[in-house]
């Protein structure tokens, strides 16, 4: 009963939309009917051209679906049957674009102040502190590195006090170290302000690290896969130790295949028999072992 009450009072972002899209293989209808729990970080995962960014844009109000509804907690943002369409300006979303889309004519501080409803210097200062931008506040975006620009984009998106943060592959252009630290910052923001965060990502380790839930995009449908472990490890194997990784390179040597894998941020080499499954660079793989006990040491 207690659990039932929790479930009942749990606030949700309910999305139920359909939109015709064009992909490289032809026309398809994106059909998304998902509930996203408020306050969590969730991921949209799937191949390119399956509508992840489009759905993000529909939530933001930058694109319109052919039909459907979007309810954010107690508010209706979209209801095509009843002609309700809350314009993007009124939706209170913090959108972080792949290209960052900073305003080049403004300094970092001005970018953040412009995003606020009313100029609030103390909030701007706090944001710049969190993202390590204080010493760069009077610089223009063109003078910053990719990672710094990304931090400004995040700080600017939060400055407008959004109800939902929408991040479109925010870390794809950054190196692993930079990714790691910005991922920590995204997690910190989510904890600090409890803003629901939807992230489009291809990076399995990133999804594992940040997200509590993952929505898988296949051609035309979006499926709630629950916890990231459900999607990436599956129930195919019950190993004692499991990792997911990506194949960086594979070399064939007589009877064996040497795979260079990226597990988390670390590349590792693994030898597999050549007559088994063939692996190509870019394949997502699961590494599991159940025959021995792993040695775990603190570093």
């Amino acid at each position, binding site marked *: 009963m207690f659990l039932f009450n929790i479930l009942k009072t749990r606030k949700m972002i309910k999305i139920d939309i359909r939109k015709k899209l064009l992909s490289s293989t032809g026309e398809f209808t994106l059909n998304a009917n998902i509930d996203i729990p408020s306050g969590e970080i969730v991921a949209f995962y799937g191949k390119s051209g399956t509508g992840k960014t489009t759905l993000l844009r529909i939530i*933001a*109000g*930058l694109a319109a679906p052919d039909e459907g509804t979007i309810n954010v907690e107690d508010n209706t943002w979209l209801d095509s049957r009843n002609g309700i369409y809350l314009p*993007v*300006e*009124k*939706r*209170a*979303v*913090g*959108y972080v*674009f*792949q*290209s960052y*889309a*900073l*305003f*080049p*004519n*403004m300094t970092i501080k001005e970018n953040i102040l*412009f*995003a606020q*409803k009313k100029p609030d210097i103390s909030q701007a200062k706090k944001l710049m502190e969190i993202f390590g931008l204080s010493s760069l506040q009077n610089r*223009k975006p*063109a003078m910053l590195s990719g990672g710094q620009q990304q931090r400004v984009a995040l700080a*600017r*998106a939060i*400055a*407008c006090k959004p109800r939902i943060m929408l991040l479109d592959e925010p870390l794809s252009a950054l190196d692993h170290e930079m990714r790691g630290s910005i991922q920590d910052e995204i997690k910190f923001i989510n904890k600090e302000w409890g803003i629901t965060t939807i992230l489009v990502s291809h990076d399995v380790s990133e999804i594992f690290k940040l997200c509590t839930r993952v929505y898988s995009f296949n051609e035309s449908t979006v499926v709630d896969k629950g916890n990231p472990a459900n999607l990436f490890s599956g129930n195919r194997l019950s190993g004692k130790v499991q990792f997911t990784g990506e194949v960086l390179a594979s070399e064939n040597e007589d009877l064996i295949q040497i795979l260079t894998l990226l597990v988390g941020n670390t590349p590792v080499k693994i030898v597999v028999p050549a007559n088994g499954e063939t692996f190509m660079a870019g394949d997502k793989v699961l590494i599991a072992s159940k025959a021995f006990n792993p040695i775990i040491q603190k570093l």
Partner: protein
Amino acid sequence: MKELITSQPFLLTLEVSVISLILQFIIGVPLGIYITGKNSIFRRIVEIIVTLPMIFPPMALGFFLILILGKNGLIGGFLYNTFDFKIIFTFWGVLTAVFIVGLPFMVKSVQSSRKQLDTAMVEAARTLGKSKFAIMRKVILPNIRGGITTGMLLAFGRSLGEVGISLMLGGNIIGRTETLSLAIYNSVYEGDFAKAAELSILLSVLAIIVIVISNKSVFFKRKTN
């Protein structure tokens, strides 16, 4: 030299070029931004009309404008009958000519820099809850400043050298509607080569100043971007 600078053709040229530059700025910037918007038939028609003077033969265009703006024309007739206002063969005729030939340079320059602007930047401003007016003032206009400056300089340069339509609409009346370019023609026609040379040098100096400022503005644009 002092005589030249205080002469009627120089003052008229400067006056119409500056006034038309202000008008080209006021009308050209919104037009350039407008025609960059979502593709529609009306937008394409506006774009064609505005761009027409760039490629249309000036004499032919001048002739059509006489038909429209003359005392018996659609617009000219209305202005003459209602306000007793004449365009053809007056200062206003020269101003109209100079304005029309320079406008496409302004509009095209604004259009191309608006097109180059990252659409995500405008979308980002919208997600931040900003009004259309605020986006225009704080995001779009400051970021197409380079295009506006280039457009103004090109339009001004074109205005200085305008002959064809000015001749048709202004009438080349000495002491009234004679611009610098027409004054050069008149001097050569009268055999006063010395005066033609002086006027040509003056006009060239003005053009060189425009080129120098234009190059500086391009350099400035590069630095800020």
